[in-house]
């Protein structure tokens, strides 16, 4: 600290970015577009899982409606960019011409809107604990979805369409990196320790002078903000936002990532977001290659419909045999800010 040395996390992110970019160049073509889609989705899941980890793993609350926040971010930022810019895909020289800044601002506004919703939801929910809180957040998530389904201005059940495609590997990596740094700095600050202490023992935390209400709401708001950013990025990647993308099941998938990775471990969330996204695609490819056979007059296929069965079994097995998740509560060195030691 204090020296001009670049932080290791930044170096790691730069290496990741440069390597992936080079490998995906048309001339090299080791990573094709399919890989890039998986990587982009993994990165968005990284934001979602890491931010849910802040709520569930760090602050010790429990949200089952995380995608509801993502929906708010997606719809708000998507509405802004479709209104402000009716523009095609990024052109060369795009970075300095303006629209990208509007996009970035829209994403941040989407995040802030999600944060506000997080505040509205977090505040009344705080009297509840454990599974009551889980159900409450699930209810709020469903209500957000129902409302979106019924607002014709944002497309109702047709979804919000015609969002410009601004999310690229570059913008997604940038936002993911910023959010990881933000979350890491938060957790390893005095405020973060206050949040952790709530998870460990809420009563003792209060009696250490921590305004636990404030920090629980803060956990919800920051988590919701990040989810809103992820939602915005996803909407600008797919060029649409649809209410069904933000229901209970997608929220459960993010929850699974957090638990599989290890509650309270950001490293775990990141690792699980990547590995589960890749695993799903890997299983898809694997199942594609199983030939079909006949039983009687029926054609029996062992096809991609079994992927989710495997996914569910995997989740149960992780919970049974490694309840604390793959990483437990540990963090990779890369994500730990080293403290200068005196003496």
């Amino acid at each position: 600290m204090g020296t001009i040395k670049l932080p290791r996390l930044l170096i790691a992110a730069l290496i990741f970015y440069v390597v992936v970019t080079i490998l995906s160049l048309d001339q090299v073509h080791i990573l094709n577009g399919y890989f890039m889609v998986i990587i982009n989705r993994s990165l968005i899941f990284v934001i979602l899982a890491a931010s849910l980890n802040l709520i569930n793993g760090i602050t010790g609350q429990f949200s089952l409606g995380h995608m509801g926040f993502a929906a708010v971010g997606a719809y708000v930022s998507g509405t802004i960019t479709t209104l402000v810019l009716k523009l095609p895909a990024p052109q060369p020289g795009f970075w300095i011409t303006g629209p990208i800044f509007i996009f970035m601002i829209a994403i941040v506004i989407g995040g802030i809107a999600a944060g506000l919703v997080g505040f509205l939801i977090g505040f009344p929910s705080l009297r509840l604990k454990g599974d009551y809180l889980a159900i409450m957040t699930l209810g709020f998530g469903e209500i957000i979805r129902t409302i979106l389904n019924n607002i014709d201005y944002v497309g109702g059940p047709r979804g919000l369409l015609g969002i410009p495609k601004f999310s690229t590997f570059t913008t997604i990596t940038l936002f993911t990196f910023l959010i990881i740094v933000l979350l890491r700095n938060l957790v390893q600050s005095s405020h973060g320790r206050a949040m952790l202490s709530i998870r460990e023992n809420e009563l003792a935390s209060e009696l250490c002078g921590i305004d636990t209400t404030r920090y629980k709401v803060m956990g919800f708001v920051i988590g919701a903000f990040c989810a809103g950013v992820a939602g915005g990025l996803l909407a600008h990647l797919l060029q649409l936002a649809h209410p069904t993308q933000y229901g209970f099941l997608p929220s459960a998938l993010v929850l699974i990532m957090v638990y599989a990775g290890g509650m309270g471990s950001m490293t775990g969330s990141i690792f699980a977001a990547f590995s589960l996204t890749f695993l799903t695609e890997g299983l898809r490819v694997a199942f594609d290659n199983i030939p079909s056979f006949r039983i009687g007059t029926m054609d029996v296929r062992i096809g991609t419909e079994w992927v989710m069965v495997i996914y569910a079994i995997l989740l149960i097995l992780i919970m049974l045999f490694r309840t604390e998740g793959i990483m437990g509560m540990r963090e990779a060195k890369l994500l730990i800010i080293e403290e200068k030691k005196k003496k």
Partner: protein
Amino acid sequence: MAELFSLQQIVNGLQLGSIYALIALGYTMVYGIVRLINFAHGDFYMIGAYAAYAAFFLFNAYIAPGNVLVFIVLIVAMLVGAAVAMLSNKFAYKPLRYKPKLSSLVTAIGVSMFIEYFFSAFPPIGPSPRGFPEVLPKVMWTMGSAQVSNYVVIDLVVAAALMTGLTLLVQKSPLGRAMRAVSQDKDAAKLMGINVEGIISFTFLIGGAFAGAAGLLAGLTYPRIMPYMGILPGLKAFIAAVLGGIGNIPGAMLGAYIMGIAETTANAYNSLLGEGIAFVILILVLLVRPTGILGEKTADKI
């Protein structure tokens, strides 16, 4: 708005409420004993419906549709529901009993996903909906301004009979006393010589059987079954249990009937409200009275 509270709407609500009640009872009993929101409970209901469907075709060859067949099919649905519930408990929940509570919740989500996706992927069942057969001929009566079928009567009678039986079991029998003891304090119950795991398993058995019965009733009343049919009723029944006071058996019944009538009324008023009413109720209850209508306040020990 006369049509909101017409006799017909109340009949509709009671019929829906009966099905919710049977599912809600399982939720509430399991929660009362192991403090677990068993997300897979709605799927036990779905399995019950499929079991009833299979049983119909198995027995229809020998017995003509009618009350006897309904009874046989009901028993099969309850047995299968109970078996699945006990198996889930044994393999997925029991090993996590003394781990953090929320890991059981996540496991329950996993079990739920597994059952749904497995049924959908398994070729003999598959994702397509199936028409549920008429297990007994339908008879319609006109009562005042309302149309009532014998199915409504069956729904109400089966639900009432099972609920009465359960209330008697819990209140009067030694087994019920043991269940209440376990729900109060597992460790103390163990010291008193109660087989705690046995009681938990029995609770899952009852809950699963009731969900199975609800599956048959749903098949009769809304004659379409599919692998994902349990998600929504499961969630709503759970909300009904919370509304009545989770862990409280009469509360679950009360909550379920309120829920059925509220949903019917809301649907008649406006589809947006109808879609969200369950969750609005949930949030209101949790904010205003998290212990539910009949639930008792338990002081946190500091």
